[in-house]
């Protein structure tokens, strides 16, 4: 067993403890104060039934409203190679990946709120607002996942279709739909899963008990109702739902690959000009761009100067930065060992074990952060003051949340490196530090930089675990924005949101530029 493999198994052991210990906390429901055996008959509770139904319903609608239009938008992109600003628009569609949920929410409030450009009034809060925000995040993601399906259709098939004088309908029926059918269910389920575990959007835009999901109900049980028994029951329900969806996704294994980046994806396109396609791209571009533009305008014309002069805001910004960088460092390090071991095992033909090592890094898909946080809360609250351990807990859980991104971003480059140079390095006795400095770092620094930048931006924008464990004294910028929203300080929240967005983009750029360096690999 190599040093890298030993380190990877240590990472897996730590991950197992971090996941299993909180699960133990959840399963020790019986020892919680206030537990009654009839609590287990949760299906008799109207409240829990309603929360479960709403969780599934909003996730289903969000998935439909994101993916169905995304088919039209991806198709329009695939057929409009010379659409003006095509590359810029595709880049804009990568932006929601690093825009914190709470910032997007502020953008949506800024457009559709009572004082917004398209006012929806009170009806923004509830299912409408949740759907608007979920579509803002997931329509661009679905477009970037679906676009490669069109690009995967062989060039000769298009040429044959032209030769045989296929109409638009025939092209769709014989070329496009068969390609799309392969990847569509996977994309749909992925978006469904993301919306099922969405927390910040529902917390900020959900309208009371009628529009509460399991994630938000867990948070409310712990932080407002002080009812850990109900929180644990809800967490176990959420865990079961996520497990179910994850198993279906794994069984399908048809999820198309997409390069995770805010850069414009490499895309070949065909030119079947149709004004309707241009209109579709334009509308989607406006939908995604408008909240960000509106946020920018509202923030700059609001109390931005007052917010920037506030020392408390900068203290929060410092904490946000610390959590982001801490999570990024931890996540990239763990991902490095897991991927290194996985590549070495794959190189030796142990493919099953290699896959298992890699998959272990994506455990957070099955165990949502809030479920993990609830387990940690229940497990540790008897022994320590969990609120004073907020930073380590938030860094570790955010690092775990970032690990799947590290694996997706760094994995392909590491596997290629291993495949090309492992034998050569072995024969030249290049290992350990020498190998890292002379070979791996120069060849992989771009992917390492991108992974670290992504995890840092995601962790900085997180309003999940920090909401569970944070206090006014330990508030990060996202939590501060949530507190400002709760106090109806909308202009201040908008300005703080712009500051957070700027900080996330700056950190992303600095890390990608200075760690990632030039694209020399």
């Amino acid at each position, binding site marked *: 067993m190599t040093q890298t493999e030993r380190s990877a198994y240590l990472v897996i052991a730590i991950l197992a403890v971090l996941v299993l210990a909180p699960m133990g906390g959840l399963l020790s429901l019986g020892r919680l104060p206030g537990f009654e055996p009839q609590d287990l008959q949760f299906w008799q509770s109207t409240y829990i039934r309603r929360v479960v139904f709403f969780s599934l319903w909003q996730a289903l609608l969000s998935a439909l409203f994101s993916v169905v239009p995304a088919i039209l938008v991806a198709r329009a992109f695939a057929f409009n190679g010379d659409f003006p600003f095509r590359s810029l628009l595709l880049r804009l569609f990568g932006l929601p990946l690093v825009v914190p949920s709470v910032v997007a929410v502020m953008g949506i409030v800024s457009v559709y709120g009572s004082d917004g450009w398209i006012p929806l009034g009170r009806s923004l809060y509830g299912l409408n607002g949740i759907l608007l925000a979920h579509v803002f995040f997931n329509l661009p993601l679905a477009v970037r996942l679906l676009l490669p399906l069109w690009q995967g259709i062989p060039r000769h098939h298009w040429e044959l279709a032209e030769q045989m004088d296929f109409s638009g309908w025939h092209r769709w029926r014989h070329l496009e739909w068969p390609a799309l059918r392969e990847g569509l269910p996977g994309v749909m389920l992925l978006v469904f899963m993301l919306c099922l575990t969405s927390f910040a959007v529902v917390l900020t835009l959900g309208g009371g008990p009628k529009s509460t999901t399991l994630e938000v109900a867990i948070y409310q049980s712990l932080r407002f109702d002080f009812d850990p028994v109900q929180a644990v029951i809800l967490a176990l329900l959420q865990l079961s739902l996520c497990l179910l969806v994850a198993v279906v996704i794994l069984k399908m294994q048809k999820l198309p690959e997409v390069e995770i980046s805010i850069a414009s994806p490499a895309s070949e396109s065909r030119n079947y000009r149709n004004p309707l396609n241009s209109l579709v791209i334009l509308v989607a571009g406006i939908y995604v761009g408008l909240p960000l533009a509106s946020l920018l305008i509202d923030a700059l014309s609001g109390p931005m100067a007052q917010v920037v002069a506030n020392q408390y805001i900068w203290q929060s910004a410092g904490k946000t930065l610390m959590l982001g960088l801490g999570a990024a460092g931890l996540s990239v390090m763990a991902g490095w060992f897991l991927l290194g071991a996985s590549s070495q095992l794959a190189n030796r033909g142990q493919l099953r074990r290699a896959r298992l090592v890699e998959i272990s890094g994506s455990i957070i898909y099955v165990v949502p952060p809030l479920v993990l946080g609830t387990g940690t809360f229940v497990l540790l609250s008897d022994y320590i003051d969990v609120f004073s351990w907020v930073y380590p807990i938030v860094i570790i859980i955010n690092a775990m949340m970032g690990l799947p991104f590290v694996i997706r971003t760094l994995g392909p480059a590491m596997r290629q490196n291993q495949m*090309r140079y492992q034998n050569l390095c*072995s024969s*030249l006795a290049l290992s350990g530090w020498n190998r890292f400095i002379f070979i791996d770092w120069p060849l992989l620094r771009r992917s390492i930089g991108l992974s670290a930048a992504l995890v840092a931006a995601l962790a900085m924008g997180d309003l999940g675990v920090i909401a569970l464990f944070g206090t006014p004294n330990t508030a990060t910028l996202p939590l501060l924005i949530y507190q400002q929203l709760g106090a109806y300080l909308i202009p201040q929240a908008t300005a703080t949101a712009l500051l957070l967005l700027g900080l996330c983009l700056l950190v992303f750029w600095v890390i990608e530029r200075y760690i990632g360096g030039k694209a020399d690999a």
Partner: protein
Amino acid sequence: MLEIGALRYQFPGADPEIMQFDLSVAAGEVLSLIGPSGSGKSTLLNLIAGFLKPDSGHIHVDGEAIEHLPIAQRPVTIVFQQHNLFPHLDLYTNVALGVDPSLKLSTEQDQLIEDALESLALSGLEKRKPGELSGGQRQRIALARVLVRERKVLLLDEAFAALGPAQREELIVLVKALVERKKMAALLVSHQPRDALIASDRTAFVQNGRIIALQPTRQLLEETDLVEVRSYLGSL
């Protein structure tokens, strides 16, 4: 010099077919290995280099067993078809890594590298990156590294397959001279019978994980009665 006896290997999870090799290569000799794809030629090289571990059998170099040695400690150097060079490092550093992986070179080692580059007509290109060179020049750099590593066994795994006929012939002649001069034992895997004719006095034909013929090259390629060899040569 290189002695391989009853060297057995079975791919994990593969059908029960077990590969077994027996052969010897003298100092200063280039022995060619030809045969269909998947016949086991590269597997044999990987077993000698240590990338694969044999199930049983022995590999001796100058009478000393090497099959239990770690990869880097074996008196073996290998040139692959591609990815012999690190694309981000200049030519000089690529060669120097063969001398000392920590790149802390003495004056003598510096001189050794300079000499190797000069003998392969690569002087003046030290600061170039592999991407700026032709395929033939890149393989020359790999050969320069072979020179500075000073190992007794040289393995060439389709090392020149990506080159045009003229460049291939030129490099094979170079390798042959190098092997004779340095008294190395070399194994050349190739799909081109003509490579064997240029490089080797003796050639082995490998099929289904066994050496089924080991004869003087011209005899094997032009006069053999073996159906397998004739069928293979006819299919090219």
